């Protein structure tokens, strides 16, 4: 467990919008160990998404360094962001296509991943023929198809109903434990963070800064509605509330 998968050192990010500039992240430092499941928690506007986009390399960093040690990084968005002209199967194959994986192998691999997310019967459906939860599952399969060592998830279940979300929590936990992946999961839902994370990292708002970390030692599998999760979530909610209050003053 000693290996560090993501090393974030004093990362600051400033956006310039015409004359005004906005400090989105302020000196954020964070290590995520290999195989760890870390939940990044914060109110909206705390730069959580910015941080993920920086790690995956979609934005250029203003200051500081991010090192993933050459690991392959996949990113899942809050929306499934599936390609609407492709079937579920072809969506899953997309990343492999860009890596030059031969077609037959691509097809088998995509089938296998769709089975893993319980969509074996829906391979030939297009995104608009699937439910919200199914679409997000296709997106999970598509991210897994990248064979990434690190999976970044940006509030992936925020738009789903509570029941579907519970099911997907179980699924993502199972996948994570079987595949020995590193997951950095952004959410503003405290229970979700406690349900999933080995560790919950609390970010402040505007500018985003790491204000507290909570190791979660509740044994897995956990349930969102269990007492242990609720108690831990309560403690973190208090901290979050204090943070919000301090910021408000």
């Amino acid at each position, binding site marked *: 467990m000693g290996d560090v998968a993501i090393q974030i050192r004093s990362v600051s990010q400033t956006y310039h919008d015409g004359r005004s500039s906005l400090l989105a992240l302020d000196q954020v430092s964070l290590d995520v160990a290999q195989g760890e*499941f870390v939940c990044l928690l914060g109110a909206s506007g705390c730069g959580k998404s910015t941080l993920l986009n920086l790690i*995956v390399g*979609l934005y250029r960093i203003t200051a500081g360094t991010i090192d993933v040690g050459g690991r392959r990084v*996949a*990113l899942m*968005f809050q*929306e499934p*962001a*599936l*390609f*609407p*002209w*492709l079937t579920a199967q072809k969506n899953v194959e*997309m*990343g492999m*296509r*860009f*890596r030059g994986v031969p077609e037959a192998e691509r097809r088998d691999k995509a089938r296998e991943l769709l089975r893993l997310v*319980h969509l074996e019967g829906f391979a030939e459906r*297009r*995104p*608009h*023929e*699937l*439910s*919200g*939860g*199914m679409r997000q599952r296709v997106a999970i399969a*598509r991210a897994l198809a*990248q064979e990434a060592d690190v999976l970044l998830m940006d509030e992936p279940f925020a738009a*789903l*109903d509570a*029941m*579907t979300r*519970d*099911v997907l929590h*179980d*699924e993502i*936990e*199972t996948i*994570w*434990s079987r595949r020995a992946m590193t997951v950095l999961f952004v959410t503003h839902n405290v229970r979700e963070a406690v349900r999933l994370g080995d560790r919950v990292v609390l970010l402040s708002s505007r500018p985003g800064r790491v204000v507290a970390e909570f190791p979660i030692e509740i*044994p*897995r*599998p956990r349930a969102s509605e269990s007492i242990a999760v609720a108690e831990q979530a309560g403690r973190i909610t208090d901290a979050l509330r204090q943070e919000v209050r301090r910021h408000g003053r």
Partner: protein
Amino acid sequence: MAASRTPIHERESLEREIEGLDALDVPFDESDSPWLPRAWAVVWPKLAAVAIVLASWQLLVWSEWRPSYVLPGPARVFAELAELVSVLKFWDAVATTLRRAAIGFALAMVIGTLLGVVISRSRILRGAFGSFITGLQSMPSIAWFPFAILLFKLSEGAILFVIVIGAAPSVANGLINGIDHIPPLLLRAGRVLGARGLASLRHVVLPAALPGYVAGLKQGWAFSWRSLMAGELLVIIETRPSLGSQLQFARELSDAPSLMALMIVVLLIGVLVDSLIFAALERSIRRRRGLVEND
């Protein structure tokens, strides 16, 4: 440390149960209704429109606003049309015109697509040529003919030149528009999956821009058909009869019925190509992407 303790099969049966809620959200296909009533629902408004146009035309003739050798009635014109289509020379003319249309449009498509791709990829080129292309689009194609005739003499080349210059900007603009309207999230998803350069263009950008591109093609077809008709009226090649030259001869002979019969042919070809090719293409793209309500 993260091993799951609940047996897998138990979990999965639970998932199956809970999945019920999300499954309610799965859209299902309702397009199995019998085709005959659906076809009728599409056809009757069009038939009604044709009937109204014909009736107004007939009324105009009956009003004796113009003498009947200048403005013949529908019956006379359709009789002429029936006679026209029985002559081999007519089909020869149609073939010449359609061949020009096909070649001209294909050229416009290739050039417009290349222009669109290049311009949409570069901000500088966009600033330089974007409004220029829109300007070209609004220029009446007939205004190009004197110049085209100077360049190419009275030849096929002159006609093709004007078709291309009339239609290529629409195709380019359609593609640029399509690319502009791609949801940024899709482009980011593509980049996260490793889409770069040409692969990104081929597998993400162009498919995502397809609806706008097809709209551009459709408009491009309308412009090239118009330019072609203008061209065939002006650039008459003696040895090669075409729809436009036939029209011009009918005018010179003051043969109103055959002139109007030819106009109907021009209109019909324009409408058929538009609805059988472009509108159908547009519909199928929209359906595949779930952009239509079932109707």
